[in-house]
């Protein structure tokens, strides 16, 4: 039922009580302000923090970006991809190829992102023929083909990879600062992109598919369109992360950029943080990153521990860390639902019932 049908134009419900619809409680507004100032602080960090810390943060941003994208696929439209490394690699190799043809490496980034999105369209025709686990493995096969394919080109360094040309002129400190900003920008855009998508009309379809796909289909939602849109968006986001990876590592190596390990990182971060929320992948990435740094001297043990924790959480604590936090305190950094406040109208807050967009959100009172 739409709110318009429920309410008279002046915001009076059939029972006579008036109500107001908002996208968030007050905490959402404050979180928005805090987020914006937090982003500003992060952008200014290179002026204060040590180079080692800045370069570590770049890796965190890459992780946040790819897990946000993976979460958009698995958390909202139920597409478990094990092959997002295809697009990380596609982004990295576009940077490499264009830089080899004389482009300025940073200028290649938008091209790489668009190229990956374009590549995702025919790829989706193929993999969308399968569902569930078959979809997962088909995406993985595409990524494996990509490794074998690029390794055939001697000019791209074959199986060992090669350096990205055109990065020498920057000077180490300037280069670090520039790709730090690139990483921060791409990650912020990815998170905000998913946020904007979820608040759009298509976002309602996505939330509906997350909660019940059959139900969403039966009320006439364009589920396939929504899925394809998210798949293309996720490809673009992962390619963005791939460009940061190529520039920050100064080289592109097929066994690194196309490694299925990336999918493990995404899955573990999202499962620990919480599937199907915007905040979850960010929280999970931070936990993942801190563990990775703390256990850096113990080889792959961090991955074994994080993998075991992620599996346990998938079975016993599906809501993840962020879900555990929000069940205790009603915090919301990225409000995507609707709130309906009954009772006397408070001027200046939110939209009056009846003029709000389309259908009611995932819950009538609260998100």
């Amino acid at each position: 039922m739409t709110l318009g049908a429920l309410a008279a134009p002046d915001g009076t419900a059939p029972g006579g009580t008036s109500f107001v619809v908002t996208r968030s409680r007050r905490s959402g507004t404050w979180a928005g302000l805090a987020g914006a100032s937090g982003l500003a602080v992060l952008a200014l960090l290179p002026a204060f923090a040590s180079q080692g810390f800045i370069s570590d943060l770049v890796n965190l941003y890459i992780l946040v970006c790819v897990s946000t994208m993976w979460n958009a696929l698995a958390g909202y439209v139920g597409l478990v991809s094990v092959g997002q490394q295809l697009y990380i690699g596609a982004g990295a190799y576009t940077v490499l190829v264009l830089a080899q043809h004389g482009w300025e490496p940073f200028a290649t980034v938008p091209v790489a992102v668009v190229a990956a999105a374009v590549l995702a369209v025919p790829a989706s025709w193929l993999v969308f023929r399968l569902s569930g686990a078959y979809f997962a493995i088909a995406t993985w096969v595409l990524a494996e083909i990509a490794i074998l394919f690029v390794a055939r080109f001697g000019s791209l360094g074959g199986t060992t990879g090669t350096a990205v040309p055109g990065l020498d002129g920057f000077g180490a400190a300037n280069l670090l600062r520039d790709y730090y900003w690139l990483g921060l920008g791409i990650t912020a855009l990815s998170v905000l992109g998913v946020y904007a998508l979820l608040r759009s009309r298509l976002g309602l379809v996505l939330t509906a598919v997350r909660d019940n796909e059959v139900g969403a289909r039966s009320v006439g939602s364009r589920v396939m369109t929504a899925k394809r849109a998210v798949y293309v968006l996720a490809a673009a986001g992962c390619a963005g992360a791939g460009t940061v990876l190529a520039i920050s590592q100064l080289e592109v190596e097929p066994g690194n950029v196309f490694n299925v390990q990336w999918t493990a990182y995404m899955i573990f971060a999202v499962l620990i943080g919480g599937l199907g929320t915007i905040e979850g992948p960010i929280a999970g990435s931070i936990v993942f990153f801190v563990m990775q740094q703390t256990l850096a001297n113990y080889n792959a043990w961090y991955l074994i521990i994080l993998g075991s924790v992620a599996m346990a959480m998938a079975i016993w604590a599906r809501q993840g860390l962020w879900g555990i936090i929000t069940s205790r305190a009603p915090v919301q950094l990225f409000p995507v639902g609707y709130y309906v406040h009954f009772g006397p109208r408070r001027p200046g807050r939110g939209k009056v019932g009846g003029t709000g967009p389309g259908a009611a959100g995932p819950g009538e009172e609260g998100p």
Partner: protein
Amino acid sequence: MTYLNAVIQGLLLGGLFALFACGLSLMFGVMEVINLAHGDIAVAAVYLGLSLIAVTHIPAIWVFVLVVPVFIAGGYLGQRYFLQRSLDSGPVTTLLVTFGLSIVLENVLLEVYSANSQSLNIGSLVSSSIVVSSQLSVPYLSMIFLGAAVVSLAGIHLFLRRTRTGRMVRAVADDREAAQMVGANYRHLFGVAAAIAAATVALAGLALGMYTSISPTTGPSYLLYGFAAVVIGGLGSLWGTLAGGIVLGLATTLGSLVDPDFGAMLPYLVFLAVLAVRPRGLFPKKAVL
């Protein structure tokens, strides 16, 4: 003659792929689960065998007798106390949990056994073959693989058709609620199916360890070959799986005639081509199993 040789090698390599695929096919047919750790579990079987040989100095052929029962028990218990819990919370969870298991297993093997390649040394059997002519020879080992794949598939087929437990497994796969109403314990039956799948995984792994050298990161590519064989053959069709394995084996050896890297790539391309043209596989089957 080169081509004939490649075709024969391909047929026999297909046996190895089919051996990997039949466990996947069975698990999917019964529980609708794709175990993404399939390849890594097979590799773990090889390392278990290697450790057994290192500790007890038994002849390598004996590892079959020791490793396979361990995996049968592990398959049953793993299904009942680990995988079943994730099955209860939905297909996405199962997929994520088995992927997590794959990564964890791979890294544990890496920590314990290092990244060096190793193989199961079974002496003269590896190199001996029936020599038809100077350019054409058929290795005994490959024939054994093809034979093992046929015997495993036939065994699974007969078990599902002819035994009481097998019929109950099929009943649970067809309609779990109805089967439960007539007294089938689906958790136990899923455990039985997983135990059989684990036995074939162990066999496939040990066969691979004899055929070529393996490292902790070998697993995923054989998961993908096995999976591709299942899809090419037609979902849920056991004999289609054998055909799918042979198609992939032929693609590998014929592709290798061009160059070795192409031999690794061609099976994947064949898989994508089948997916694009005949998404239900070459031998689609309507009923499960």
